Every structure is written in C-alpha cells, then in structure tokens.
C-alpha cells in the first residue's frame, strides 16, 4: 500500500521504482563531521593528553617519594670520630656490640678505614695527606621497618659506649623529602584541576557551538514530531563518539610520549626517568593495574563530560522551541 491515502500506484510503477531506487539503510541523523565537532575533538584530545601526562607524573612522583622515604627511613648511620687516646677500631667494636644487643636492628656493617678514605677521595684528592688525617669511621645500620628500635635510647647508648660516636637517623633529610614530595603532589593535583576545569569550560563552549551549528537539524526533527529524548539521544550518540575518540587519542598520545621519554632517556639506572616510566607501567601487578585504571578514567571522564555537556546544550536549544 502506498503511504499516501488513496493515491494509487500501479504494480508496474512500483516495480520500476524498486528497480531504480535501492537506498542504503539510513545513516546518522545528526551530521557525523562538522567543523565545530572536529575542533572539539582536537582540543579535547590535547586536554586528555595533558591530563594523562599529569596523572603519570603524579604517580611517578608518589612512587619515587615513597621509595626514597622508605629507603632513607630504614637506614641509620653511626659516625665514630677519632678521639685523642681512643683506639678507633675498639670504639667501632664497642658501638657494634651496642647495635648487636639492640632489638629492632636487622643488620649493621662497619666501613673499614680504607673504605672511609675512598669515600673522601673525590672531595680531598688521592694525596698522601689522607693517610694522616683523622678520618671518621662509619657504621651502616639497617633497621626492622616493622619493629624499629627506640632511636633516642639507641643514640644515648651509642654515645655512652664510646666518646665521639653519634647516631644519624636521617630524620631531617626524610622530612625534607616528604615535604618536597607533598609539594610536588600538590602541584600535580593543581595542574590536573586546571586541566579538568579548562576541559569542562572548553567542552561546554564547544558543544554549545556544535549544537548551534546543528540547530537546523534539531528544529526539523522537533517539527517532524521527534520527542526531546529522541533528539537528545541522536545528539548524544554523536558526542559519545567525539568524547571517546578524543579520550583515546589523548591516552595513546600520552603513552607514546612516555615511551619516547623512556627511550630518549637511555639509561636504566634506578632513580632515572626511564626506570620511573618503566616502573609506572611494569611494576608489580597491583601498581600497574592501578596506573592503567587511573589513565583509563581519562577517556571515560571525557566521554561523560561530553555527554553531559551535549545534553545540557540540547535541552537549552529545545527549551527555546515552542
């Protein structure tokens, strides 16, 4: 039956029509590629790229800070200064005995005089003068992180064991590092917040622009009897694609940039950039899956941002009609 009431079309005409017309199944109602949407995709990709880099930087700073602080916190140094009338080797042994008797210490190792001299050579040169100098002796101490010793009592015990011996717990350095790490984290979060706010403003502005460019389509749909939710779903489908592709482009770009940095850095020494980037992606399973989950959030949040913004913009346009 013909769509128009009562308008008869002959069987021959219908066959002719069928032969001539073979339309493809309909494409998307909202244009798939407009200048405004393309601009939005490019800008959002850049924002996602920056957000991924900021997150990666934050994770690397956090990992490095916790590694530094745990290493510094788990090691102590006892310094035995040479004193008039005191045999330094005996003093070292006396301190070692105190350390041996103290619970909470995993192990300790005394550097020989030659080791101490070697440590000073880079600063004082390899002259004969070093042999005559009263070089302090160092004892490295590794504490049990779970049950650490009472450091104040240990310091008193060491000073009592031999004059000129002192305990350096590196607390000052540790607190400086903690302060530095937390400052870097704060800066990282601030950068992320600025990126998020800029992205939100950008999406709001761009989606409004993109929908204004599609106002004609929205009006025609509205006048053809489309419900608001049908129009919104057509628009959101388009913005879903924009948000997802922008998020993925940004994520892939950031992963490429990190790999490039790791490759260009060249060295693989512990504490280097390459090691930090590798540690980010290939550390133990829990850490790397957390990294992937956090980076995976970027395209997800971008898509949600695009969808929400599109929904608000399309509602605003629909409210102006009738």
């Amino acid at each position: 039956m013909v769509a128009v009431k009562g308008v008869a079309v002959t069987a021959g005409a219908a066959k002719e029509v069928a032969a001539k017309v073979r339309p493809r199944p309909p494409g998307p109602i909202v244009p798939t590629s407009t200048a405004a949407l393309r601009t939005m995709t490019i800008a959002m990709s850049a924002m996602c790229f920056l957000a991924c880099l900021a997150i990666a930087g934050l994770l690397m700073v956090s990992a490095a800070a916790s590694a530094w602080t745990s290493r510094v916190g788990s090691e102590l140094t006892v310094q035995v200064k040479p004193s008039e009338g005191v045999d330094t080797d005996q003093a070292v042994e006396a301190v070692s005995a105190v350390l041996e008797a103290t619970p909470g210490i995993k192990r300790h190792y005394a550097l020989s005089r030659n080791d101490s001299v070697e440590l000073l050579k880079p600063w004082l040169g390899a002259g004969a003068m070093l042999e005559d100098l009263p070089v302090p002796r160092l004892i490295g101490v590794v504490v049990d992180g779970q049950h650490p010793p009472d450091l104040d009592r240990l310091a008193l015990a060491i000073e009592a064991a031999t004059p000129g011996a002192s305990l350096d717990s590196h607390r000052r350095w540790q607190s400086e590092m903690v302060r530095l790490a937390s400052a870097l984290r704060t800066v990282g979060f601030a950068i992320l917040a600025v990126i998020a706010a800029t992205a939100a403003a950008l999406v709001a502005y761009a989606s409004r622009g993109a929908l204004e460019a599609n106002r004609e389509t929205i009006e025609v749909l509205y006048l053809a009897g489309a419900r608001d939710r049908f129009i919104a779903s057509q628009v959101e489908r388009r913005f879903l694609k924009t948000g997802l592709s922008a998020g993925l482009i940004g994520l892939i770009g950031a992963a490429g940039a990190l790999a490039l940095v790791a490759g260009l850095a060249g060295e693989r020494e512990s504490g280097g950039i390459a090691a930090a980037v590798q540690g980010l992606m290939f550390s133990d399973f829990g850490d790397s899956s957390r990294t992937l989950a956090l980076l995976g959030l970027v395209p997800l949040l971008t898509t949600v941002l695009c969808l929400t913004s599109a929904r608000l913009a399309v509602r605003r346009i629909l409210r102006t009609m009738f």
Partner: protein
Amino acid sequence: MIRLDNVGLRYGRGPEILRDVSFELAQGSFTFLTGPSGAGKSSLLRLLFLALKPTRGLISLFGRDVAVLRRREVPDMRRRIGVVFQDFRLLDHLTTFENVALPLRVQGKRFEDYRRDVEELLSWVGLSGQADAYPPVLSGGEKQRAAIARAVIGKPDLLLADEPTGNVDPALASRLMRLFVELNRFGTTVLIASHDSLLIQDSKAPVMTLAKGALTWSR
C-alpha cells in the same frame, strides 16, 4: 479540527503581525490562505504547526487548547500535522530518501517497514531517480517535491503547506495539487498558503485572505 479566537501575534516589541484572527476549519476541509507578501500567512501557519505561541487569543487543534498543552504532548500532536515549508527545510546531510523518511524514523519505525512506502511516494512525486541524491544537488522544484513528500509520508490529519507549488511548472503544480486533493478526499484537512491566483481560481475550495494582519473569507 482547527479553531482560532481573536488570535494576535507580535514578534518582540514590534507591531502586531496578526490581529484578532478568528476562524474555524472543519475536519476534512480544503482551504486556501492567500494575501500579499508580509501579510502574516507564514506566521499564521507557524502558529498552527506549533512553532510559535500566540501573543493573545486561543488556538485549538484537534479539540485541544494548545496553550495548556504539556511539553511532552506536543510531539504526538505534531505527528498529526504535515508541514511543507516555504524554504523546504530539507537536511543537507541526508539523502532525499532519508529526508522523506524522517517523520517515520523519528516515530521509531524500522527501515524495512517504511522503505517501500517512501520509495512509492518518491515515485509519485517524480523523485525516484534522486533517492540517493543530497538536497544541495536538487533543483528548486525537486526540493519542493521532496519537502511535500516528507510532509505527507506520515499520513497526517492536517496538512499545512506554505507556497507548495511556488517552484514548479504548471503541469507539476497541477499534479501536486492532485496529491493534496487525494489526501483531502481520504480525510486529511488541508490548508494551503499560496500566491498562485490561477491555482486558487482552478480550485473550488474556500479562500481566506490575510491583509494587514486581518482575515477575511471569500467563496
């Protein structure tokens, strides 16, 4: 079917485009609306297809006062109205077939279910060869026929057409008028705004004339 009581319309703080317009169109009627350019014909049609709200007065469509229509009820009422716009309002990124099928698509109908109807209607308006063409490559007459096909594809209860034969030759104008007459014969109320005095004279349908915002009847 359609009733207007003392309807007035002005855009912003401008002068009244329509003044105290009152008329009633019975179900199944066929009526022309004419008048000089700028008389308010298109504005009156826009009021009737719910693209505008009157500044004052009452408009009743299908027995419902449009002033108290809830927003979610508007699409259902629109689906009962087919509109041929003077400027066609075809979507340039959709093919002729997709433009004509649009009212069915927004109703959630499936491609397989409406394909044959759209193809047959395109054949009737002489556009079967242009089904896959995009509006920018269509001539003015072809765009007009596509716009008419889109207006009637949903078998509307009310057809509003703004200068529907303005861009076609007399032979095709007559053919399109036959389409409107056939629609009307099967119950669709038709209101055609036109400048075409010959077309109006050929028809025996009643004529409303708008001049300086006021409405008079003839025939």
